[in-house]
């Protein structure tokens, strides 16, 4: 019989307001095996923890039940507490009477009753708990960063600086991401390329960093410290080690009508291309969708002109497999498609552009060489209307747009407005907004400068309709402060489109078994206390894949993710989770059902000798679990037809005891 101590926490008034904690302690004290039960205001405080340790020693407790918050919150805390007092940490059970009771029930009598029942279930389980010893596993001292934008670059640089090798996997031909497309950056207005490209070069030249551009993560196996990742290196039809990036092929390529994605399709590029001058790696890539040679086998001009002999039309996708200790997700964002927002005539007029397109129109390396010209007739626009919150902060019941605030639009719109007025003082600039949200260091001052010094017309209200007519864009909008309808004949309209996670994020999350929210942003392990870790051990988050953020925040998060990775990689061994599957070999008939359902490939089979009748020996095929690979998901325990498979710490008997205690 166990000697069990029960500790009921008030969590201040969080639990105590809707649960009679004294009554819970009194009721649980009468349960079989319970030798002590008490309640205390904050069980997780030092005093609370000291009390638990004292009682373990004083009463010789062999099991502990804590009635408190969710085990996700403090199970690890209380396990450590008990371990320090000499108790095996797996002899501790948590009854969640906060999230599952006090926070969801209003009636104190109901809450108290449910808390007692959950406590009873935990006690019934502890009765059957056995001490478990966690195994150890080694750590592969190499990190993988998925995504080569500013988030991925910064994370990789920081990990590499600590002395660990890093691979950056980037789906595009070059690293750089969205920041490479930007002109100036708020609030200091320094040129994006000037601050980004040195970092790109650093990443390219760092001995600890390997850039796998034009590549994608194909498959992820393993677990924290020991991931095995298969990476697809897409055929770029150019030998990376031979290409010098001279650009002669681009001059010779006859297929010059390929929409240039780097310039948001505002101009064209050739079929063989280097996305932009500062690309890293500076290696050409052939776009197979447009290359005449690859499509019809007729051309070969780039191959004939390449002095380095780097062109290889026969190149195939290649796969490489690599082991990593940690994985950082930095897949970034994209502006949403504006197809569903045709009240702004985006698909009808080339002069209605998205903010990222406007960014390219302002950029010296952009399609207009940095002179702001209307895409339709390449004339200088004299009246520009900016519309904020296009697809952001939409009603949940609306068929289009996102519910969240995209966070960066207020600032970049202020930047666009200010830069336009700075370069072209003869241009009238209007900004329509729902709210102007500019918290952040030097942000509000920046916005006010746009209004006060640059005389940008900020109007609270939304644009209802944009009608292209006679070379103008007739903008109909409401001014909510003045309570009137306004009509503006504009030359250009710029839409601040909401941002959303990159489309590759969802399938990647599945491969990583990392969780996402309804908007496809990666979920952090704790929204406040573990913001750069995914709930999946060994997977870390960097940049906008986790939520909308600007460059300073992205870089800060990238550094934080790197420090978490370094903290993991410096360890020589990781303590595993002992709650893994274990087969009862005497009951196992080697049917392979468990092997088929195991998502981690942790189960293999062995032929083992068993004692048969009359002193004979039988060789039987039985299941074996690799405890380092098993994640304790329990799928095999359900699949096993003979009931031979059990999860340590969550055995069938323990679960049934809990159910019985609840149903008593």
């Amino acid at each position, binding site marked *: 019989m166990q000697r069990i101590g029960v500790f009921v926490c008030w969590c201040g008034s969080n639990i105590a307001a809707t649960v009679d904690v004294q009554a819970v302690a009194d009721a649980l004290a009468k349960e079989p095996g319970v030798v002590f039960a008490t309640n205390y205001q904050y069980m997780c405080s030092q005093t609370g923890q000291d009390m638990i340790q004292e009682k373990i020693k004083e009463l010789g407790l062999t099991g502990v039940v804590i009635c408190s918050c969710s085990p996700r919150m403090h199970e690890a805390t209380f396990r450590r507490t008990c371990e320090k007092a000499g108790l095996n940490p797996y002899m501790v059970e948590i009854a969640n009477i906060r999230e599952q009771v006090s926070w969801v029930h209003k009636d104190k009598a109901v809450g108290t009753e449910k808390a007692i029942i959950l406590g009873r279930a935990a006690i019934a389980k502890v009765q059957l708990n056995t001490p478990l010893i966690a195994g150890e596993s080694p750590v592969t001292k190499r990190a993988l960063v998925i995504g080569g934008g500013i988030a991925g670059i910064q994370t990789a640089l920081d990990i590499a600086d600590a002395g660990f090798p890093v691979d950056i996997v980037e789906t595009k031909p070059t690293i750089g991401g969205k920041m490479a497309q930007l002109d100036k950056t708020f609030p200091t207005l320094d040129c994006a390329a000037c601050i980004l490209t040195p970092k790109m070069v650093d990443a390219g030249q760092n001995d600890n960093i390997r850039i796998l551009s034009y590549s994608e993560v194909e498959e992820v196996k393993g677990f924290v410290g020991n991931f095995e990742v298969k990476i697809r290196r897409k055929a770029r039809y150019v030998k990376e080690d031979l290409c010098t990036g001279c650009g002669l092929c681009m001059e010779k390529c006859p297929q010059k009508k390929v929409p240039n994605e780097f310039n948001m399709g505002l101009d064209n590029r050739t079929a063989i291309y280097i996305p932009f001058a500062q690309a890293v790696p500076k290696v050409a890539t052939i776009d197979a969708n447009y290359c005449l040679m690859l499509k019809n086998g007729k051309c070969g001009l780039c191959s004939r002109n390449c002095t380095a002999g780097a062109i290889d039309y026969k190149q195939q996708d290649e796969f490489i497999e690599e082991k990593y200790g940690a994985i950082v997700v930095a897949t970034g964002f994209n502006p949403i498609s504006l197809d569903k927002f045709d009240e702004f005539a985006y*698909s009808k007029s080339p002069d209605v552009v998205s903010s990222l397109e406007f960014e390219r129109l302002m950029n010296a390396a952009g399609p207009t060489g940095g002179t702001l010209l209307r895409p339709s007739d390449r004339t200088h626009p004299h009246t520009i209307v900016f519309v904020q919150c296009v697809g952001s902060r939409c009603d949940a019941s609306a068929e289009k747009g996102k519910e969240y605030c995209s966070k960066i639009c207020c600032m970049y719109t202020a930047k666009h407005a200010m830069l336009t007025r700075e370069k072209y003082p003869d241009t009238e600039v209007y900004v329509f907004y729902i709210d102007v949200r500019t918290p952040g260091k030097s942000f509000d001052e920046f916005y006010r400068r746009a209004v006060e010094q640059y005389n940008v017309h900020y109007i609270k209200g939304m644009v209802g309709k944009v009608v292209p*007519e006679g070379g103008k864009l007739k903008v109909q909008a409401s001014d909510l402060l003045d309570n009137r309808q306004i009509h503006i004949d504009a030359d250009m309209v710029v839409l601040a489109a909401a941002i959303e996670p990159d489309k590759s994020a969802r399938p990647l999350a599945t491969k990583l078994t990392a969780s996402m929210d309804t908007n496809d942003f990666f979920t952090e392990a704790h929204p406040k206390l573990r913001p750069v870790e995914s709930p999946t051990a060994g997977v870390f988050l960097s940049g906008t894949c986790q939520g909308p953020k600007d460059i300073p925040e992205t870089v800060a998060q990238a550094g934080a993710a790197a420090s978490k990775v370094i903290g993991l990689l410096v360890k020589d061994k990781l303590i595993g989770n002992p709650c893994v599957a274990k087969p009862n070999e005497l009951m196992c008939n080697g049917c392979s059902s468990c092997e088929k359902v195991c998502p981690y490939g942790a189960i293999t089979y062995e032929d083992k000798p068993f004692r048969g009748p009359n002193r004979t020996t039988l060789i039987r095929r039985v299941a074996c679990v690799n405890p380092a690979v098993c994640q304790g998901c329990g799928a095999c325990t359900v699949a096993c037809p003979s009931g031979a498979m059990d999860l340590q710490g969550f055995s069938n008997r323990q679960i049934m005891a809990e159910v019985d205690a609840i149903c008593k």
Partner: protein
Amino acid sequence: MKFSYYPGCTLSAKAKDLDEYGRKAAEALGITLEELPEWQCCGAVYPNATDEIATRLSSVRALSNAKKAGMPLVTLCSACHHVIKRVNHDMLNNVDIREKVNTYLGTMEGAEPYEGDWQVIHYLEMLRDCVGFDELKAKVVNPLKGKKIGAYYGCLLLRPGKEMQMDDPENPTILEDFIRAIGAEPVYYGMRNECCGGYITVEDKAQAKKRVNAITDNARNSGAEMLITACPLCHYNLQKNADEPIQTVYFTELLAEALGVK
């Protein structure tokens, strides 16, 4: 193809063209439009007030009778379609309204409870989804070649998009596709899905005039020679309240012309 048909009262008075050509064209396309017996005025938009129950009965009766006849209900007037489609949506999704309406119906002899489980489509949807614009194109004997036509949707036909479910309310294509099917050339203009102000023309004529002029000017400046519509209210307003009216006809008239039955 057989459908129950709800003409509505404007089509029996002011907008006879819309109705007459619609029926002729349907016949030419091999479609039987069976007029509902004893249909009543839909109440034109006012039934959509959230606290109105009695005024919804006429639409419910029309839907219920179409269900009894076993044929999808086809409407032609934008306003009638707007009302009947939205009442149908309420009957399916709003428990409160459904129960109250059925309590009313329960007091009437021979009326059966209705749960919002029948289909009502607009004539244009019938052309697009049941006939098919390609099929229609094949049946055109008199293609309206070279005619530059602006589609005028107005406000009732498309919005609210979630309930009407006909087309994208901000970027509709159904009328343009129709224009292409009858051999003419659609002209895009931005004001095509804006309200013409028809509903306030009695109350505030100046405002209605302003709206209409904005629409006709935009259409003309974009190159439209004529406008087509499915709404009697818009038809009236565009003709009577514009400073320089642009020729506006019902889409069924052009359909009949293209099919050689005008």
